[in-house]
């Protein structure tokens, strides 16, 4: 819109608005406000060379202003305080507070303050499209100006020159891209926009400059090894029933960093190592040749594993030697060990170190580092020792009991590293002294039975179960003879019980003993009274799973379980 009369060479919203205000209907109804309007107009004329870019908005404003001024003649006149809300006053405020800057015009001298702010975030976000870079520049100054500029952002103007430089550098390119954006591919605009945002960022806000992410080269070998380990370890033995501590996470986090701090052991149990080695050689001999073209990349992985093992072993040593829990673990991990491909003949040193670590639990970092260095010096095959040893431990330990104690921590920890839950139940009864005994005493494989005389006499087993409960309830030490006495009493009791149940069932004319018979029996015994019902007893003494089976409970869908 050509504007010859205005003081500015270029038509801007501001000038247009000013013109509008000046030429506006003087019969705008506010006679009392005319003085104020005049004062405001005077203020308006003082700022010079104010430009706002969106001319469409100017015209719209003008039109709306006119319409509103005419329309609001009547009611605005009446209310005094509404005069501040009129479009005229609003626009005047805008003109007053808007900075003397325009949007990004290529040759313009000053730029609006918030524009760099707006452009930067928008450019950061839309780093892909040059068009998007332009649009926010156009819009925000008009939309944000009233909002942002009212508080008076002096700070932004300081950086205008800097931004300007950046923009000048970037704009000629972006201007071209603007024309090409429609036709050209994104790649060209991509290149352009990458340049522009970075400069303003780094120059204006050095703190926000994004550092390139430090990338380590991916160790494919170690990665594959870890993959294999986790895949193997994904079939954990079903011993992990009670211990739910997340050992795996701290271990995994620690394993890469633990490389150097190794608690080290005194080298005891050398004979065990020899035995282990001999056994291992048997099992690993055929595999060695296949895997001798080894994977030196897995050196680090293996070492980290061992180190993590060593590191975490003292922490968890107290809970590790759960023999009962260890065995099934061994069986489960043994399967994995078979699949492990890294075995080596000379794993003795690592095994020795590991076991000594396990048994003695002494911390001598020097010794262990020596051992590991010796390992490393021997070659690629031996570097697989750590990985193989943990895998081999279970196979060998199953047959060679002395390895039991030390191997358990190894493969336990190895399993933990692989992200499994720790296996050992909180068997506090199995104290650290135990592993030492089997180490030295038991050479032949231990035939483990779940309980005394279990296979021979299942009846005795059941009775002993209740005898243990008796000692638990008594809370006092007991003689062994007293326990045998208890078992006799239980036997008699069972006989009585069955007879009574038979009588009750026969009394009811049935051949099947039902829960009602049991309840009647308990009532007669004096356990169930009018005060104490059967359900109360069930809740007191039975675990939840049985409670659910015994006590009918209503569920959704109008169903009751168990059904009656």
């Amino acid at each position: 819109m050509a504007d010859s009369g205005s003081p500015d060479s270029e038509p801007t919203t501001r000038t247009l608005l000013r013109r509008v205000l000046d030429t506006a209907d003087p019969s705008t109804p506010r006679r009392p406000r005319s003085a104020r309007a005049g004062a405001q107009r005077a203020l308006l004329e003082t700022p010079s060379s104010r430009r706002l870019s969106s001319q469409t908005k100017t015209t719209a404003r003008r039109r709306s202003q006119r319409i509103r001024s005419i329309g609001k003649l009547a009611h605005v006149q009446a209310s005094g305080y509404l005069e501040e809300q009129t479009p005229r006053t609003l626009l005047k405020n805008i003109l007053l507070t808007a900075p003397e800057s325009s949007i990004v015009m290529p040759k313009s001298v000053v730029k609006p303050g918030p524009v760099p702010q707006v452009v930067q975030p928008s450019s950061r976000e839309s780093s892909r499209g040059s068009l998007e870079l332009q649009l926010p520049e156009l819009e925000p100054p008009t939309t944000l100006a009233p909002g942002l500029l009212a508080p008076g952002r002096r700070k932004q103007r300081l950086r205008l020159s800097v931004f300007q430089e950046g923009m000048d550098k970037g704009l000629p390119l972006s201007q071209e891209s603007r024309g090409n954006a429609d036709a050209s591919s994104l790649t060209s605009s991509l290149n352009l926009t990458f340049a522009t945002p970075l400069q303003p960022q780094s120059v204006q806000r050095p703190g926000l400059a994004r550092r390139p992410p430090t990338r380590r080269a991916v160790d494919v070998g170690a990665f594959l090894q870890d993959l294999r380990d986790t895949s193997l370890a994904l079939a954990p033995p079903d011993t992990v029933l009670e211990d739910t501590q997340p050992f795996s996470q701290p271990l995994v986090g620690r394993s890469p960093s633990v490389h150097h701090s190794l608690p080290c052991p005194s080298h005891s149990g050398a004979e065990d190592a020899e035995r282990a080695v001999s056994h291992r050689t048997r099992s690993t001999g055929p595999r060695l040749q296949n895997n001798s073209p080894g994977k030196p990349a897995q050196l680090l992985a293996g070492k980290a594993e061992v180190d993590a093992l060593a590191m975490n072993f003292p922490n968890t040593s107290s809970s590790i030697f759960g023999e009962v829990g260890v065995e099934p673990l061994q069986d489960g991990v043994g399967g994995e060990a078979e699949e492990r491909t890294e075995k080596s003949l000379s794993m003795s040193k690592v095994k020795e170190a590991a076991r000594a670590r396990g048994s003695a639990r002494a911390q001598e970092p020097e010794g262990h580092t020596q051992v590991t260095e010796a390992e490393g010096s021997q070659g690629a095959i031996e570097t697989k020792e750590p990985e193989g040893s943990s895998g081999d431990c279970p196979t060998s330990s199953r047959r060679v009991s002395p390895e039991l104690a030390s191997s358990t921590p190894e493969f336990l920890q190895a399993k933990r590293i692989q992200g499994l839950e720790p296996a050992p139940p909180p068997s506090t009864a199995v104290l650290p002294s135990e592993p030492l005994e089997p180490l030295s005493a038991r050479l032949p494989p231990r035939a483990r039975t779940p309980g005394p005389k279990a296979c021979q006499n299942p009846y005795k087993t059941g009775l002993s179960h209740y005898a243990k409960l008796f000692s638990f309830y008594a809370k006092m030490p007991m003689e062994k003879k007293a326990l045998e006495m208890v078992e006799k009493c239980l036997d008699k009791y069972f006989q009585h019980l069955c007879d009574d149940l038979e009588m009750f069932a026969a009394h009811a004319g049935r051949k099947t003993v039902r829960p009602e018979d049991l309840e009647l029996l308990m009532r007669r015994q004096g356990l169930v009274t009018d005060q104490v019902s059967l359900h109360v007893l069930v809740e007191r003494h039975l675990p939840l799973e049985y409670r659910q089976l015994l006590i009918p409970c209503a569920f959704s869908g109008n169903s009751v379980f168990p059904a009656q």
Partner: protein
Amino acid sequence: MVLSTTVSQRKHIKRKAPRGFLKRVFKRQKPHLRLETSGDLLMHLNCLLFVHRLAEESRTNACENKCGIIKKEHVLAAAKVILKKSRG
């Protein structure tokens, strides 16, 4: 199934009911009878309560004799009383 409910116990007390054992015992005693599914759970409950009462009685006996250990005699005397009580 819950194997142990308390951690403070030195030994692990199995809360599992030896259902197979109980069924076998009943079958041995009364082969012509049948036992229902929930019946053996209630049987187990009955046994628990019996053992509980027996233990309490034995402890009382032992404490009366100012003994720190439950002896065979205490158990025997207690069993006499409790078995009589448990007769249906």
